């Protein structure tokens, strides 16, 4: 009964979305207020309906209602409660329901907090948002209905893929989707502005908080996915350039570019049509990401050809939204005239460079991701594009970006002086080079990646510190002023420094990690860097829905026990799948990462151990970026801009 209610509200939500798509747009075009006014209640109603539907599906998972097909396919009575709930979105149908739920959430927030937007703009934004809802709700109901019943329910389910039974991955999709779907707000604002033919500084202000929020969620989502891969997959890799990862990384790159170009629109009324294009593309890449992940096209072209229904539907959604948006853009972009005048050396130029590097790097990732597909379709050439290609093709852009960042972020608007800005950065430059040289001296005979990465990371971090310090002016009270700087400045400092930390950490772990693979007898001790590790015992232990073998390993340093770790091997009988649960001793400067392998026929156990320097700094840097986004979002300028905007000559807030 509750399941049917969820099914019913889902269909009702589609109807409401149709109303939300059509009526406000007609109202905005013909200037009828009563029609425009339908936008807000329909957006809120849509959220409530989809919310009920989502709750009903969650209820079915929690109750293990095995008359539902997707519950059978993805759940099991013995599965822990957390994973029963996360199982709701751990599958195709449920993850789409989460997708539309978040879409409706953004639509409803725009309706609730957009009270002071001009009526026409708000009506159009919500109408475009409604149209996206129509497309995805129709997709769900027609091809991927989560509420499909089975005529003969089985006694128990097939369980969830064990790799997904992990707290990190339980919360990874919601964050990622908040980011993906959040890009739809920038898209809706861009389409509304293009229809209206008016883009000004105010538009830049309205769209920035939404983009910023989506960007923060996307950053956290990507970092969580990477962290999950690090500890769950068993060899401590943190980024694999997998198509699915690229699918989330491409919108992130474009969104980062969009955040920066929207600043130029807001402050200088320039780069308008480019910003429009980025707003369209950011959502376009979110859709492409959804297509890549949901159609299975990248795993195998044949899998796609055998079951093309879903893939073709998403491709149609992509074609309609991107085709329509780009046509509208082509027709209207010429009316978006840039106003600001600025010199060759200026903050504007620096931000153009930022956009150029981010957009081209995204393009490189895009081409690399779809190339196997293109090559197979056009030339029947089966080939792979993997990590070695992406490392070589993508890294130069990040290096250039990091090199330019400290200088670009302190150039003056309109007309900057290269010499003067550079003069402020001498300290940072000297410190960075000194650090690089120190690292070079400490490590002998290893790759240049370590010292270069350290210098580059330090350059970005010191550059960010210098940027903040430079805003405090002169005199004795600079520390006091530092604390009173606007949150947006702190946000920028944190985000930029976070990038530096991540750049450093990635090069450090790549250059300096060490690995040891060997057969260890019970009670035997082996060295790992400066540590000594003893395999103390291996015990059998049944888990709730798996069987495990748990090793006890003792880490010593200088004759003293540092920690005891318990790496596991698990076997999930329902899915017939083994997993490794690595044990990690996390430290500020290094992680000790231990993996238990197979029991050897000659006695003893295969053991893999890694020393991973600065591992946590990778995600620490990402968190700093996300925190910077939050700080910036909490700045009162944005709180004001999210909705409130003087429509009748009220003074601006700053």
């Amino acid at each position: 009964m509750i399941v049917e209610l969820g099914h019913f509200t889902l269909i009702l939500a589609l109807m409401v979305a149709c109303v939300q798509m059509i009526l406000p747009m007609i109202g905005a075009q013909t200037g009828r207020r009563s029609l425009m006014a339908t936008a807000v209640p329909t957006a809120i109603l849509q959220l409530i309906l989809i919310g009920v539907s989502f709750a009903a599906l969650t209820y079915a998972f929690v109750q293990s209602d095995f008359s539902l097909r997707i519950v059978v396919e993805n759940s099991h009575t013995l599965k822990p409660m957390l994973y029963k709930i996360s199982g709701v979105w751990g599958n195709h149908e449920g993850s789409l329901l989460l997708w539309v739920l978040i879409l409706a959430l953004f639509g409803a927030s725009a309706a609730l907090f957009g009270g002071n937007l001009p009526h026409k703009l708000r009506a159009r934004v919500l109408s475009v948002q409604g149209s996206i809802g129509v497309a995805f709700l129709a997709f769900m109901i027609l091809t991927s209905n989560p509420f499909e019943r089975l005529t003969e329910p089985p006694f128990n389910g097939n369980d969830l893929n064990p790799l997904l039974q992990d707290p990190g991955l339980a919360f990874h999709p919601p964050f990622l989707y908040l980011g993906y779907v959040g890009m739809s707000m920038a898209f809706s604002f861009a389409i509304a502005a293009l229809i209206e033919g008016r883009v000004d500084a105010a538009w830049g202000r309205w769209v920035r908080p939404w983009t910023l929020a989506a960007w923060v969620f996307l950053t956290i989502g990507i970092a969580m996915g990477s962290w999950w891969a690090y500890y769950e997959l068993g060899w401590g890799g943190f980024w694999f350039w997998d198509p699915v990862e690229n699918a989330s990384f491409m919108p992130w790159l474009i969104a980062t570019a969009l955040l920066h170009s929207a600043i130029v629109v807001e402050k200088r009324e320039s780069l308008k049509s480019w910003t429009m294009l980025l707003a369209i593309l950011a959502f376009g890449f979110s859709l492409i990401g959804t297509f890549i992940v949901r159609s299975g096209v990248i795993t195998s072209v044949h899998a796609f050809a055998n079951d093309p229904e879903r893939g073709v539907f998403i491709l149609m959604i992509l074609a309609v939204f991107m085709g329509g948006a780009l046509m509208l853009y082509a027709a209207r972009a010429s009316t978006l005239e840039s106003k600001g005048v600025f010199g060759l050396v200026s903050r504007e130029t620096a931000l153009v460079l930022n956009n150029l590097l981010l957009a081209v790097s995204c393009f490189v990732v895009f081409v690399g991701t779809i190339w196997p597909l293109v090559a197979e379709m056009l030339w029947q050439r089966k080939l792979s594009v993997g990590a070695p290609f992406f490392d070589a093709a993508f890294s130069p852009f990040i290096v250039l970006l990091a090199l330019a960042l400290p200088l670009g972020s302190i150039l003056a608007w309109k007309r900057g002086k290269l010499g003067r800005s550079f003069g402020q950065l001498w300290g940072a430059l000297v410190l960075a080079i000194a650090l690089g040289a120190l690292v070079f001296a400490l490590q002998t005979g290893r790759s240049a990646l370590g010292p270069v990465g350290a210098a580059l990371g330090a350059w970005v971090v010191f550059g960010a510190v210098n940027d903040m310090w430079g805003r405090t002016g002169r005199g004795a009270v600079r520390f006091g002023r530092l604390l009173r700087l606007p949150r947006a400045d702190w946000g920028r400092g944190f985000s930029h420094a976070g990038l530096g930390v991540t750049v450093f950490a990635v090069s450090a772990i790549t250059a300096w990690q060490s690995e040891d693979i060997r057969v260890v007898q019970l009670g035997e001790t082996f060295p790992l860097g400066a540590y000594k590790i003893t395999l103390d015992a291996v015990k059998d232990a049944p888990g709730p829905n798996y069987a495990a073998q748990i090793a006890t390993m003792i880490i010593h340093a200088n004759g003293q026990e540092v920690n005891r770790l318990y790496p596991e091997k698990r076997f999930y009988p329902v899915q017939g799948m083994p997993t490794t649960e690595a044990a990690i001793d996390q430290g500020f400067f290094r992680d000790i990462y231990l993996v238990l392998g197979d029991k050897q026929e000659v006695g003893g156990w295969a053991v893999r151990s890694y020393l991973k320097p600065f591992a946590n700094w990778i995600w620490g840097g990402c968190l700093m970026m996300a925190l910077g986004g939050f700080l910036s979002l909490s700045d009162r300028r944005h709180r004001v801009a999210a909705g409130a905007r003087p429509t009748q000559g009220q003074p601006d807030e700053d």
Partner: protein
Amino acid sequence: MKIRNLSFFLKALVLILNLGLGAVAWAVQPDEILSDLALEARARSLSQELRCLVCRNENIDESHAELARDLRVLVRERLQEGDSDTEALAFITARYGEYVLLMPRATGANWVLYLAGPLMLIIGAGLAFLFVRRRSVAPDEAPLSVQDQAQLAGILAQAQKSELKDPPQ
């Protein structure tokens, strides 16, 4: 009752695991490692450029599949027989097709893949430069319209009023 059955089942499974019957190969195994450290290092870096054919997107160095293990052993055999890195890669590519190469060869249409980034950067940089130069010589903003000026005056007057009411500290 059911739960007890399952835990018995799990214990049985553990037993099977211990006997090594249900075992899977885990990435690089201790017995694969060559005693010659230089050769082993080369084998490791070559393995990272080869794709496991039965996995989704893993190189053979990280893959748990049996096939990946066979390939790792094959790479080591070739190196021990005196192949150079290129020769070893060519040997494996000849048998398994270019699908195994994670770094695709720059031949034929693949040039598009390699040139796409640099070309786009050059085109983009050219366009950006033209745009920036145009902005730097563009005439200054048009003067405010009468309507805008009236609005501005209103804003300033109100701002002044609120400042008088609420003087800044």
